């Protein structure tokens, strides 16, 4: 095998290694700058399925991260806000009855805000309202 052949082979190997390196570089970047959702390993469709199955309680606690300012991908943001609505409604009742009136009022305002911002989900919000109301034992 002459030098030229060895050199050509080394160039090909380098190109393959370079491609592999770039792939790993992008993968590492993604791995380091992953968002809260990836870390929590919540599947993108999980919340959507929960809402479709009317399991609002699961949606509620799974989407709690949105309240503390976690970055939520745009395509699933609506589902998270629906979850936030259910969570706040559930928690509002507790705050109201433990004399945390300011917090209860803050939650109430946010609930109104969500309803106004997302009128297309009115039927879901109504269903959540009904389910939380139904779950309260008087």
């Amino acid at each position, binding site marked *: 095998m002459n*030098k030229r052949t*060895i*050199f050509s082979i*080394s*160039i090909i*190997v*380098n190109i393959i*290694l*370079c491609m*592999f*390196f770039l792939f*790993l*570089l992008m*993968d*590492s970047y993604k*791995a*380091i700058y*992953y968002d*809260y959702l990836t*870390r929590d390993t919540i599947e993108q469709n999980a919340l959507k399925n929960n809402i479709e*199955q*009317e*399991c*609002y*309680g*699961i949606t*509620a*606690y799974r989407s*709690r*991260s949105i*309240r*503390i300012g*976690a970055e939520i991908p745009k395509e699933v943001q609506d589902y998270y806000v629906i979850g936030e609505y*259910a*969570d706040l409604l*559930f*928690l509002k*009742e*507790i*705050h109201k*009855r*433990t004399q*945390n009136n*300011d*917090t209860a009022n*803050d939650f109430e305002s946010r609930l109104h805000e969500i309803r106004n911002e997302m009128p297309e989900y009115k039927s879901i919000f109504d*269903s*959540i309202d*009904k*389910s*939380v109301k139904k*779950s*309260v*034992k008087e």
Partner: protein
Amino acid sequence: MKCISCGGECRLTDEVCPYCGRQLVETSGYRSDIKKYKGKNEKTQKILDKVASENVPMIISVLVMVLLLTGIGVMIYINDNAYTFREEFMRKKAEKNYEGSLAEIQKYLDAGDYTGFAAYIEYNNIYVHKGPFEDLKLLGRFAEKYVELVNCVEKAVVFGDNAERYNPEESVSDCRWAICFFYQEYDYYSSEIEEDSYKEYIYDMKKKADKILEIYLGMDGDEITSFLQSSENEQEVYLEEVLMPNE
């Protein structure tokens, strides 16, 4: 060598004597040999330079290969440890911004929003077991249990009329477990809570836990006590009646 004409000292490479100027024919053979060798030497040098220049790209290629392999090794290491790096980064960031993080935490605590507090601690990877946030250790521990209780009850009671619930029996069992665990921990750590600087929030958390059971599971103070004192089976039966009335 000496000049045969004047006897002056001459070098083998001199063509004429530097003293008398006589043509030095005796050294002509030596000089032509030197010329020949120099020529050969230059030729050899050229060959050597050519070989060396041919090898430069090969050497560069090998160096690039070594660098790429090292880079790949580093990337694989980063990939494998990305979670740890990220967690560590978040933890250090929170510790660096201690005052800011504490102010944010205080906001959640003052609002009585312990689920928000727990989510904030988790998201920012605030390490409460040691380090600057160690004061929050007990509060963090209870917040974790409180969140489990909230989640379990929330999951078990908030669902639509046509909900496709997956394994509601499991929800009942999770609820029972979360309730018992919270109250057992509360009893177990009662003396430590008494001395904790954040005790008022833990007491408030307990008050809220009581309220959750009252609002969503229909238990008042005495019923909570008797629920906790009853057997596992009795607890399950009670929760099944409340959470799965039609099933």
